[in-house]
């Protein structure tokens, strides 16, 4: 590595405290496993990651940046850690209004449908499709492998469009079992 490359990840205010709390867990794998340099710039409120001489892999930088980004979006550290460990995990974000133009109460109801009572529906989707979902008001972030992201996205879209959760469960279950059979 000739020049030192750097990545910056902005941190919104609401994630400031969680970042502080989980800082140990964040920087340890980045530094130890990926051999990168990481710091949190207090002035700009950015997490900066930089390559150094010890860095062996250039792709490590993107991985680390993605990892931090995932955490900032709202994922757990352990979940985000999967990004570092596995190559083929991706992060997808979209908005509820992308699927269907909803306003006011309808929008709230849609979000409520996605979440379910006590987060039940969301957890169900997560478990069946082996993904992690972050539901931040009108924004949805999904973390997982490509196929699983697709499954989860389909399920969430169905929920937004108005399908009852039971129906969505049935669908994702069927799809997941078929996917599992193939392997």
């Amino acid at each position, binding site marked *: 590595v000739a020049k030192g490359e750097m990545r910056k990840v902005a941190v919104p205010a609401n994630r400031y405290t969680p970042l502080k709390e989980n800082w140990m867990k964040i920087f340890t794998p980045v530094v130890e496993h990926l051999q990168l340099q990481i710091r949190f710039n207090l002035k700009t409120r950015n997490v900066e990651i930089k390559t150094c001489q010890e860095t062996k892999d250039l792709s490590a930088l993107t991985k680390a940046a993605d990892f931090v980004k995932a955490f900032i979006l709202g994922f757990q550290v352990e*979940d985000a850690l999967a990004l570092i460990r*596995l190559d083929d995990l991706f992060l997808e974000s979209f908005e509820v209004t992308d699927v269907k133009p909803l306003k006011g109460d309808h929008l709230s109801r849609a979000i409520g449908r996605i979440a*379910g009572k006590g987060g039940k*529906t969301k*957890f169900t989707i997560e478990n*069946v499709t*082996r*993904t992690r979902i972050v539901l931040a008001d009108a924004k949805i972030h999904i973390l*997982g492998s490509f196929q699983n992201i697709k499954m989860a996205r389909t399920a969430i879209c169905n929920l937004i469009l108005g399908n009852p959760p039971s129906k969505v*469960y049935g669908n994702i279950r069927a799809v997941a079992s078929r996917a599992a059979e193939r392997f």
Partner: protein
Amino acid sequence: LSVQDGLATDFRALTKILYDLNKALGSNIVRGGPLKELVIENFDEEQIWQQLELQNNAVLDFFKKSIARDAKDEDLCLLSDQEEDGSDAETSSDQELEDSIMEAEAEQKNIYTQDKTKAKEKQSKFRESIMQKYSDEDSDIDFDIEALEQQTKTTKETTLKKMGKKSIVDDKFFKLSEMETFLEHAEKENREEEEDINYFEDIISDDEEEESEEAKVKPVKSSRDLTYKDFFDPVDDNDDLVANGVEDDQEEEADSAIEEQNEESMSEVEDMNEMMMENMRSKEASKKVTFSLPDDSETEDVTDVQLEKGIDPSEIKSSFEKRQEKMSKKIKSLEEELLEEKPWQLKGEVTGQKRPENSLLEETVLFDHAVRMAPVITEETTFQLEDIIKQRILDEAWDDVVPKEKPKEEAFEYKKRITLDHEKSKLSLAEIYEQEYMKLHQQKTEEEENPEHKEIQEMMDSLFLKLDALCNFHFTPKPPVPEVKIVSNLPAISMEEVAPVAVSDAALLAPEEIKEKNKAGDVKTDAEKTPTDKKRDRRKKKLRKRMKQREKEKRQKLLEKMKPEQGTKLSKKAAAAKLKRLTKEGKASLLKDEGKDKVLKSSQAFFSQLQDQVKMQIKDANKLKKKQKQQKTLSVHKLKL
């Protein structure tokens, strides 16, 4: 058509006369039937026929033999018809016969010269006339002739067939025997030319006579005057006559047979017979001599050729010329064919109207089969099949039906399908993927495990279990798994085997399982019950009632919520309560019907009651009025002051 009795009797008489005459004149040579005279008195037609048949059959047999014999004899030569005719002109009846014979002959000859059909028609006419039983003498005679004809036809058939010597080389167009005879004759010709001329001259007259249909007396021909034609048929004739048929031969045979027959009946010189035979035979032989070339012309051509030959006796056409003629004729016919209208087979799409009826049945029509034809079962195919079967049996490769197995789903798989975890997963994503990865890789290692080890492990487990059971200090048996078994309360006999060893009447369920037992034990009557029992019962009863009441209330509440109108309607108590409430509030007033308690027995009672009611009403009304009045007066009084 009806039997003309007079004519019939005449006819019969004549038949008898003829038969007797024949028998009387009968020569020693011809062996006839056993009957010396024809009996007709009180005899049926059938019987007379049969008598005649006897005679005729015998005669026929004799003729067959004689002809066969004579046919083989090659020294005989044929005489012309005229000679025979001349000899015939002896008796009057013979003359008549002769005439008719001539006619018949002429008819026969006509077959050569003109259409066969005409002659046949005439023949058939003759036959018809016979059938109708005309009393015409001529027809009478004709009848006999016809009968003889028919009889002799068959004989001559056989004789002619024997004539042709068959060799290996023979086929439709070529006969070896004919070729040989032709060659012999050709050699003869070269040696004796002068005689040929004579022959030809004589023949002309013969032909002319043949052409005419009249019966003439033909000039007598001695053996010296025999001509080429007597020996040989014209070239074109040959095949036609031979190939086309026995018919011609038959007629010829019949013709000659008739001649023979008549001569015999006239008691002639045998020589004449022989001559006739020779004549006949040479004619037949002559047929065989010429080359049989392909595409022979019809009888008409034959006559043309004959004519031509008759006209130009000096020209002897060489075989090449003959062939050339034939070719030209062939070409001509082909050209005609081409110019003519094509037959329907060559006309492309032909509907039913354009072709003759049922013509397709005679044609072999080719068409595509859309369906595969069923295999033709021949011996070979069956052998093949049998071979296959034998081989299969030896190999024991049966085509048994493989039983279908229902795919049993493992419980694990089933569970995996069913359970949906609604809680937050305790493992992080990374861990999940890690687990998956491990699973994938572990599967491989599991397979590598030694199956023997597994067996050993299982055996050890079972052994230890048993040992633990024996020394039960630290043994904790496995908790009994509650087994769910559905037992129906049928008599045990029905659930057991069909032929049980011990017949049992007992039902599968114990009596306690049918009806719950009392905790105390026996069922007690009220007198037997102790106070505690009574109290217990009371408590139970109260409990039950309480539960019932609660249920009812619940239901009622629910109903009221859902359908408020219905809820109140149903309960009587609720209605009474409501009524009370309303009356208290003053929104409703209760109407009491005191008067109607009494039973009205008489009309007087009824009317008195009615009167009372009305009175009461008036009273009330008056009261009201009074009240109103009072109010009014007060006001006025106040005003005055």
